[in-house]
């Protein structure tokens, strides 16, 4: 028997999958679908493992800037991850803390849940998610990225971009 159910998009804290589960259960019950029915069992909710959450929490808290990426800052394994690393290096960030999401499937899926962002790379500055490759490119072009890096202390105010150095020569 096919049952048509509607699951509203629910705003939830990315780090609180149990709240999502509870909210989804309540929504289904309100539509008359009780726990244990066949349709109900097919709802799969991604959840971040406690271990992955702890690893991601540590990385985000212990580094002023961290990039969750494919590969490493020295050897990126995807064009978007490489682009993010290159942009940061262009702005004078020499030491980039990177988490290689290809090494651990729990981290690879967990970071998407943690941030509520479906793709990698993901850049965090001072514990706050800044964006992926597209956002970094836009912020780089508008000058916002350099301002942010200086404001958050990732770069010293006197650090120049390569472009600025070239202009002076």
């Amino acid at each position: 028997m096919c049952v048509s159910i509607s699951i509203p998009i629910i705003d939830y804290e990315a780090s609180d999958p149990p709240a999502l589960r509870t909210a989804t259960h309540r929504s289904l019950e309100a539509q008359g679908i009780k726990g244990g029915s066949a349709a109900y069992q097919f709802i799969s909710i991604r959840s971040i493992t406690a271990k992955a959450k702890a690893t991601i929490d540590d990385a985000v808290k212990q580094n002023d800037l961290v990039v969750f990426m494919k590969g490493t800052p020295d050897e990126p394994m995807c064009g978007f991850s490489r682009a993010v690393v290159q942009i940061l290096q262009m702005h004078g960030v020499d030491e980039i803390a990177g988490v290689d999401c290809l090494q651990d499937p729990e981290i690879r899926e967990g970071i998407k849940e943690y941030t509520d962002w479906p793709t990698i790379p993901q850049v965090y500055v001072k514990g706050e998610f800044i964006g992926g490759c597209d956002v970094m490119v836009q912020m780089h072009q508008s000058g916002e990225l350099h301002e942010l890096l200086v404001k958050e202390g990732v770069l010293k105010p006197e650090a120049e971009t390569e472009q600025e150095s070239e202009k002076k020569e």
Partner: protein
Amino acid sequence: MVSAEEICGKLQKTFDDAMVLEVEDKSGGCGNSFELLIVSDQFDKMTPLGRQRQIHTLLREEMKTIHALTQRLYTVAQYEKKQKEKAEDADTDAATTKEKLPSRSNSQQ
């Protein structure tokens, strides 16, 4: 598998005022890598991150099968400025190129 047409159709419902709305399948028809260009004043006052989050919300179902998504999301003013800059760069290149560049070798390095 999701197609560029399906994504375009879905986005058009929200961005019916868009000056430009293009969806390109960059995965050669495999439906797992797309590039979006949306020019709409609905993005006014939204940060780049906020704009992308809105698209992710609209395409929540599709994102389950999409591997990569490049998004260019501009207000009308931002897009027109970019087009102008592009045109000016092209004029500058044309004016300063005096000799033809040597042809590239076909082999990869």
